[in-house]
């Protein structure tokens, strides 16, 4: 390394100080880079050299991390960055007009930074505000229910030099930490259930757990039938038993608050209203498996919750229910859906790019820094605290034969009452739609893009692990919506979020998206349907992690449940010429060179 020396030594003091704040520990790389991003508005080559020197890594290793996360930038960003959610739900709610208003006021298009370095305008996938769209992040401040007029107003205030918080909510500065959270974002709790969103008694589950042997806690969690709420539905008690049973000096409990699946926002509500319960569940898990360290992996989009969560942790420490052996730190993410996958999440906590890990070994035997690690969803931990208070039998009695207790559903899209619903497992889709005022739904995306798209003939199916398993996202589409536009958007989401580690997901999803575009342009033939299925099959079969294994689901489930949509857009190939082959554009170049029209293909010589 030749080129590091000498570059702005004075300037690098700030970087050295940031690195020192995290003990010059390479495992805290993400924290370091987030702070450098905030201080400098980008991660410059000189900054990367300085960080590399401080933590003892190569510059390319630092660049590998810095270039992975959407919220870190290798080019200078504006002092204020406006990130608009461009999910299909926001588009259907009028995103275009909002973008136009920001673009006009700030004089920049999405993807650009203003010449004076004041503003950047960007698109970002779902920020977890699907029940109050269109939504945006303005630095870390969240702005919801945007309209053209509101966007204009906010942009004008920002241009006048008003800070993002005040620009979005006048009076913001006077609000307390918790008030700010609730002022920015609505909870929209539409149905409180018995377990989570109804009344809960503070610390009761933990008190019960403190009186139990660790093994007995695991027995109780297993007996309750609780299964993970993050999507995969693994039996929580069994997961803990594996971690507890592995010989190790250290064990770690991680709460997965990455909530990146578009259409999911129930963890946001839990962290707002039941943060204490979630931390209580983590503390119980720590006792059960013998962990002293806890990490909450909070998605970067939920940065607005950070001060509030720190305050709740602080209050728990003051109360003596945290920090007596076991303590929790919050690891902020930086814009990467794949970091919700538990291996990628652990990589990210370790200061690496958010790439899934090779399995086996599984996190319960070798996870964070090689130690046995339990990763559970936010909601799962909250259930744990409640079932220890009320007893596993109480929990087990709710729900269905293989899905016990209640589940939080995040309902968004074309419905009258978008928001969070806590219901026992086993409800019919139709019943949830009725509660949400979505009786006229034509299509429902159950479980987000990685889940299943169903039509009216499937609305009697049940929301449980036996039938329609879901992490809780229910996205409603009316008959006005174009199914293929939705599928196309979801494929662009997966292309954007693939980590790129393995061939099928990195490359195959790009091809799948291109194939859907072909259908949308009316250029597809019957063979393209076979192509979609075969390509999807290869991606699912060979992908390295759950992202690639589920990314073709929008295509496959729409093909299965809305075959007519595809049939209407395919046309038989004429004369064996591929429908995609457009002779007019193919001969355009030749026309230019010959400076005349084609005698064969341009029939009309008069124009």
């Amino acid at each position: 390394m030749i080129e590091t020396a000498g570059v702005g030594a004075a300037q690098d003091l700030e970087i050295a100080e940031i690195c020192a704040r995290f003990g010059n520990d390479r495992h805290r790389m993400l924290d370091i880079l987030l702070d450098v991003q905030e201080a400098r508005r980008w991660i410059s080559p000189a900054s990367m050299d300085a960080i590399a020197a401080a933590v003892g890594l190569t510059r390319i290793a630092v660049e590998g991390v810095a270039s992975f996360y959407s919220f870190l930038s290798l080019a200078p960003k504006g002092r204020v960055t406006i990130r608009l959610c461009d999910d299909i739900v926001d588009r259907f709610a009028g995103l275009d007009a909002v973008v136009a208003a920001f673009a006009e006021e700030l004089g920049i298009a999405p993807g650009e930074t203003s010449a004076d370095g004041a503003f950047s305008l960007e698109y970002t996938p779902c920020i977890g505000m699907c029940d109050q769209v269109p939504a945006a992040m303005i630095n870390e401040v969240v702005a919801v229910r945007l309209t053209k007029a509101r966007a204009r107003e906010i942009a004008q205030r920002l241009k006048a030099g008003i800070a993002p918080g005040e620009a979005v909510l006048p009076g913001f500065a006077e609000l307390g930490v918790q008030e700010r959270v609730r002022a920015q974002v609505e909870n929209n709790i539409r149905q409180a259930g018995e377990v989570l969103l109804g009344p809960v008694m503070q610390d009761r589950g933990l008190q019960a757990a403190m009186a139990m042997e660790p093994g007995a806690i695991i027995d109780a969690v297993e007996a309750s039938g609780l299964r993970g709420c993050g999507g995969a539905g693994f039996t929580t008690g069994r997961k803990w038993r594996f971690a507890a049973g592995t010989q190790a000096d250290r064990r770690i409990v991680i709460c997965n608050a990455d909530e990146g699946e578009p259409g999911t926002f129930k963890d946001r509500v839990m962290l707002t209203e039941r943060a204490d319960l979630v931390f209580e569940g983590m503390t119980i898990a720590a006792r059960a498996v013998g962990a002293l360290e806890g990490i909450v992996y909070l998605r970067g989009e939920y940065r607005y919750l950070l001060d509030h969560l720190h305050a709740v942790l602080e209050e728990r420490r003051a109360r003596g229910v945290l920090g007596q052996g076991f303590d929790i730190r919050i690891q902020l993410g930086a814009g990467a859906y794949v970091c919700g996958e538990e291996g990628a999440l652990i990589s990210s906590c370790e200061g690496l790019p958010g790439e899934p890990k090779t399995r086996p070994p599984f996190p319960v035997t070798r996870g964070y820094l090689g130690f046995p690690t339990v990763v559970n969803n936010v909601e799962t931990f909250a259930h744990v605290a409640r079932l220890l208070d009320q007893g596993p039998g109480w929990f087990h009695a709710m729900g269905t034969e293989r899905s016990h207790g209640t589940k939080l559903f995040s309902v968004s899209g074309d419905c009258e009452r978008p928001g969070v619903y806590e219901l026992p497992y086993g409800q019919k889709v139709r019943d949830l739609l009725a509660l949400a005022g979505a009786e006229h739904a034509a299509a429902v995306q159950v479980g987000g893009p990685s889940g299943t798209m169903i039509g009216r003939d499937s609305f009697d199916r049940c929301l449980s692990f036996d039938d329609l398993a879901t992490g809780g996202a229910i996205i409603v589409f009316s008959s006005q919506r174009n199914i293929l536009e939705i599928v196309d958007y979801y494929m662009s989401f997966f292309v954007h979020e693939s980590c790129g580690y393995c061939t099928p997901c990195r490359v195959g999803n790009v091809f799948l998206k291109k194939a859907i575009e072909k259908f949308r342009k009316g250029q597809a033939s019957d063979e393209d349907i076979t192509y979609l299925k075969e390509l999807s099959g290869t991606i699912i079969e060979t992908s390295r992690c759950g992202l690639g294994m589920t990314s073709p689901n929008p295509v496959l489930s729409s093909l299965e449940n809305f075959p007519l949509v595809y049939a209407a857009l395919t046309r038989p190939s004429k004369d064996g010429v591929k429908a995609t082959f457009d002779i007019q554009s193919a001969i355009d170049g030749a026309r230019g060179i010959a400076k005349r029209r084609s005698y064969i293909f341009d029939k009309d010589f008069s124009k």
Partner: protein
Amino acid sequence: MTGESFVFHIDGVAVTAKPGQTIMEAADAAGIYIPRLCDVEGLRHQGGCRVCTVKADGRSVSACTQPAAPDLKVENDTPARNRVRRDLVEMLFHEGNHLCPICEKSGNCELQAMAYRLEMTVATRFPYLEPCRELDASHPDIALDTNRCISCGRCIRASQDVDGKGVFGYVGRGIHRRVAVNGADLAHTDAAVTDHAMSAAVCPVGCIIRKDEGFRVPIGSRHFDHGLIGHEIEEKRE
């Protein structure tokens, strides 16, 4: 590794493995070739190309990372497995720019050889992504053309683990992920042509090119002109 060796089956053939061995390691020792691109002897496993995907007791796994287990039934050389592998190899061809007739690696190239082995003969259905990445010819002895890169990461692991240098690394995410060097360009790294990472055995394709070797061995007398990729392993079989 300690412990008793055990037996499992690949396409009906009994294979002996030691605890800790991957399916691929055990297969290699038994003279059964499982196609691969990112895995190479002497370097840590990556499990990224997925060309080695096999079915083990009905589950798809990458043979280069999956531990062998007693009584496992592995499906390897079947039309279904090879069709999926062909898809993956085609994806790699279409992700980069591959013009074999003008490529220095032709005949020694593992991607090309894999296409032959998997009988990639009919026209592919995939679109071309046609990347346009700058050629790095800054180094006096080595040129780097990542337009042909298949992201196998072999150069990264070789430089880091064998040479102890870390000349290469991945940057970016998803389809934009690519191999980059530890400096402004290759000349501004501590890369040397004598590094293991720069040797012909490391980069499976024609990305890392040693400058004075061009076409020294004529096309027709090159490595894979003498046999299909994997034949050395298959010849070990009794």
